[in-house]
């Protein structure tokens, strides 16, 4: 019930003095009240919960988050188990007998 899902605004209209939109959720189209996001525009995405748009989805920060994720792994390369990394790079199974556990305890 608390599920809120992203949807894209297709159309906006005024109904009974209330700002309403038709919103596309990946193929399912629903009526959504825009009273809490009065400046939301056609084509923009919002988080929608029980028929209400509650917050605009910010494309720029979504991109930044995904970029951050794609840059992760530096820590693992620096401090990870070299045997595991080498095995992964070679595409063959880890031969075992690593000295990494002793390293890690230091």
């Amino acid at each position, binding site marked *: *019930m*608390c*599920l*809120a*899902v*992203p949807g*894209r605004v297709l159309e906006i209209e005024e109904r*009974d*003095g*209330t700002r309403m939109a038709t919103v596309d*959720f*990946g193929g399912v189209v*629903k*009526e959504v*009240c825009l*009273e*809490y*996001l*009065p400046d939301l525009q056609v084509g923009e*995405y919002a*988080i929608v*919960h*029980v*028929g*209400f748009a*509650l*917050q605009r*989805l*910010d*494309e720029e*920060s*979504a991109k*930044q*988050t*995904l970029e951050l*994720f*794609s840059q*992760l*792994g530096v*820590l*693992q390369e620096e*401090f*990870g188990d070299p045997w595991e990394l080498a095995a992964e790079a070679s595409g063959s199974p880890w031969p075992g007998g690593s000295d990494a556990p002793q390293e890690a305890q230091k």
Partner: protein
Amino acid sequence: MKYIDEFQDPELARRLLEEIHATVTRPWALMEVCGGQTHTIIRHGIDQLLPDQVELIHGPGCPVCVTPLEVIDKALQIASRPDVIFCSFGDMLRVPGTGRDLFRVRSEGGDVRVVYSPLDALRIAQQNPDREVVFFGIGFETTAPPNAMTVYQARKLGIKNFSLLVSHVRVPPAIEAIMQSPDCRVQAFLAAGHVCSVMGIGEYPELAERYRVPIVVTGFEPLDILEGVRRTVQQLERGEHTVDNAYPRAVQPGGNPEALAMLDDVFEVTDRAWRGIGVIPQSGWRLSPRYRDYDAEHRFSVTGIDTREPAECRSGEVLQGLLKPHECEAFGTTCTPRNPLGATMVSSEGACAAYYLYRRLDIPNASPLEASPVV
């Protein structure tokens, strides 16, 4: 679909997991306080991919599950009245009250209707001027603004045959109650992203400081959960305890000002009982005096409520994170989604239902053949 698919990418998930594995050196216990997040975690097996030292404790984040039995029983009584059309979200239908549920009330002749939005209930009231239409207004801060707007509209449009049975709850007082519990093992919180989309993050710095716990605002897709865990574990390992926003695409620090203004107008803060937990001070909302005429409890005198919880149901401990669902003797045996003892086995956001749906084959004492809902 945009904003969903990219945040389920397996390669990026692997990178986040590696980063978490490389960061953790000691055991840590994190609590998520949102049933939607609990569901994502169990469905994708995220808890099983994390290092053994990182334990995810499932908090009281399922709104259906924490709605007190007394309110459910009031709903059942009001819904049974011949002059009433009782409207509810679908996931309340099978929540057990004392001896029956809304589904049973409907089969006994009550006019119970499921709506997608509270505005649908208002429309039903307009179409049925000679009937009383009651909407079951439950939920956290995410659901409160839609319900507030509906009451506001009813008043504005002069729709007098509409009322709300209110049992709204607020997350920050629940976090406080958990931290004050003598059994508390929680060392950090993943805060519910969509609650913060509405409320912002202003209520959290004081809690993080007072209880010295990191609070990381977290989204709902698998990558969002992993990022919430990663940032939380980083803080814990460094001995920090600050409020961090790991869900910036949907959470602004100030929340949604229009929604906050409406909440302030329509509701007022009150003490609220949580099912399985008890009364938490200042943890709920009720209608403010100027909207009292739209309060179903005020409009219908409900009497003779005598609540009884099944003794073998341990959902209160599950909701407080003291017990994992499968550790309950009734799990998957005398308690299943078809014959639930408690609300946590009913709601799609309840921890027991999530474990039943995705884990029961791994759990020896649950009998999958007898208990399966598809038999």
